[in-house]
């Protein structure tokens, strides 16, 4: 019997996680995580390292078994593999001598999962060129991908994910190790793609700051639990305190938002993990 989506107002929900719990080697890394993603929207998946963001990605991709909960894709319970998801993992270790040009990586987005050897095709070459242009990568298209800078590699991997025309694009910490300029380039590119191509984009980050201009909604993860909704609804003292299970304060400073632990339990370690977020919409 095929399960039916019980939600009635979920017409635009491309993907919905419902009560997901995951145990990894005896430790519960996700507790009752629920949220949904909509077409044409950029959602930020925010939380410190080790809170379960990558596990959430692996659940969505079907690479991680869940102990409870369901994943709904376009209103149907996911069964097995879902081709309509593009994925850019956090670390792609590219050897400098890897015999792949940037354009080869994008090409693998078209026919990487197929058997046999690729035959030269003008249409394929044209599709790759167009995609390279749309991520502003055509001028290093023939360079070895392993020798590109971090920001350039990101753009290539995004192009690789997009060329398969996914409905949902997952990016795990795409802004890590990027300088401020590349950071803004990547964020603007993703925001544009979400709107133009009407796809849902989920971006994970430990620092919300660079994403705020582009982000439509937020999924805030702490200790394996998640709170989701509009950014200014979620980034509130009460909501986040409940999520963390202890007092945290959301401090608004001009156009920035600082999330710091409350006075009673303040320690050096807490300060280190404090998130600095800024939301222009809140000021």
């Amino acid at each position, binding site marked *: 019997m095929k399960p039916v989506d019980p939600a009635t107002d979920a017409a635009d929900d491309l993907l919905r996680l419902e009560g997901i719990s995951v145990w990894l080697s005896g430790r519960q890394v996700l507790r009752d995580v629920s949220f949904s993603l909509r077409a044409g929207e950029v959602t930020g998946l925010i939380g410190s390292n080790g809170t379960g963001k990558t596990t959430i990605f692996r659940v969505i991709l079907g690479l991680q078994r869940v102990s409870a909960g369901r994943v709904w894709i376009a209103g149907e319970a996911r069964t097995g593999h879902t081709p309509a998801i593009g994925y850019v993992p956090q670390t792609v270790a590219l050897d400098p001598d890897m*015999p*792949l040009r940037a354009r080869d990586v994008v090409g693998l987005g078209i026919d990487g*999962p197929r058997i046999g050897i690729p035959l030269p095709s003008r249409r394929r070459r044209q599709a790759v060129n167009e995609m390279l242009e749309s991520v502003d990568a055509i001028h290093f298209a023939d360079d070895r991908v392993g020798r590109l800078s971090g920001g350039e590699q990101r753009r290539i991997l995004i192009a690789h994910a997009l060329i398969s025309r996914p409905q949902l694009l997952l990016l795990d910490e795409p802004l890590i190790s990027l300088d401020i300029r590349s950071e803004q380039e990547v964020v603007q590119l993703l925001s544009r793609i979400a709107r133009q191509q009407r796809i849902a984009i989920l971006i994970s980050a430990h620092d919300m700051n660079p994403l705020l201009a582009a982000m439509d909604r937020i999924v805030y993860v702490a200790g394996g639990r998640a709170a989701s909704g509009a950014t200014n609804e979620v980034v509130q003292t009460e909501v986040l305190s409940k999520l963390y299970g202890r007092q945290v304060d959301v401090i608004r400073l001009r156009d920035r938002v600082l999330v710091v632990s409350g006075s009673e339990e303040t320690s050096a370690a807490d300060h280190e993990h404090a998130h600095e977020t800024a939301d222009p919409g809140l000021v």
Partner: protein
Amino acid sequence: MIFGSGFFQSAPVQVALVVGSVVSVVSGVVGVFTVIRGQSFSGHGLADLGATGGSGAFLIGVSQFWGFVAIAGVAAATIELLGLRQPRGRDVATGVVLGAGLGLAALFLYLDTTVSHSTGAPITILFGSIFAIDSRLVPIIVGLSVASLAIVLLFYRMLLFSSLSSDMAAARGVPVRLVGIGYLVALALAVALSAMTIGAVLSTALLIGPAACALRLTRRPGWALALAALIGVLVTWISVVLAYNSYYWSPGGRAWPVSFFVVALIFSLYLLTQIPFANWRQRRSTQLVVGEIQSADG
């Protein structure tokens, strides 16, 4: 005199050239993936374990070729089963299986020399004897080479994709584990085949060397395969010629083994590709940029 008298008329030379060429193509092609998947150690382990199979086969009176093939298959399966999914786990499993296998090889080689009184066995098994290949084995060697090559070409794009990132490939529905096993079978075959030509201990040279050179010279995946195969074939042919002729010029008139020339040539080539001269394309593009800036200033 480049070719000694009767070079191409000699039956052992003909067999050596045919087997050497086929095996070099397979080793080169498979080797490119061995290098980019970071599995050089697995490849080396499988190669060295050939010594166990070869010496065991010799002991029971079968051609060492079957020993090479059997042991590579068993070892590849063991490494795959023990190796879990992390590269480090795989390296540890390779190390353990390799140690155990070489222990057996020590026993077999000892028995080979003492029981059957054939002192040549260890040299043949460890360092190869391309001029002493039974011509009846040629069709089988060619057949297995084609099989190994077919696996790699069948999974070509999936192998490239999962070498780039196995998570990304898995997310797109590539059966990463199946592809990995298929590749390991191709690797086991390639190693067994090259053990036949240049010996169990040296077969890694033919696997890793031409591939490593090719990766320095081209940035295109398809060309890397072709170039590695070409380098392997050229090296093998030159080595066969040199070994055949070494009878005339080597001190004492003793012909030197082909394996020595193969390894020496590959190593020299590898050194050549490592010197900065090999990066001339990049330097040229830097000069171009500098030139443009200068002309813009002027």
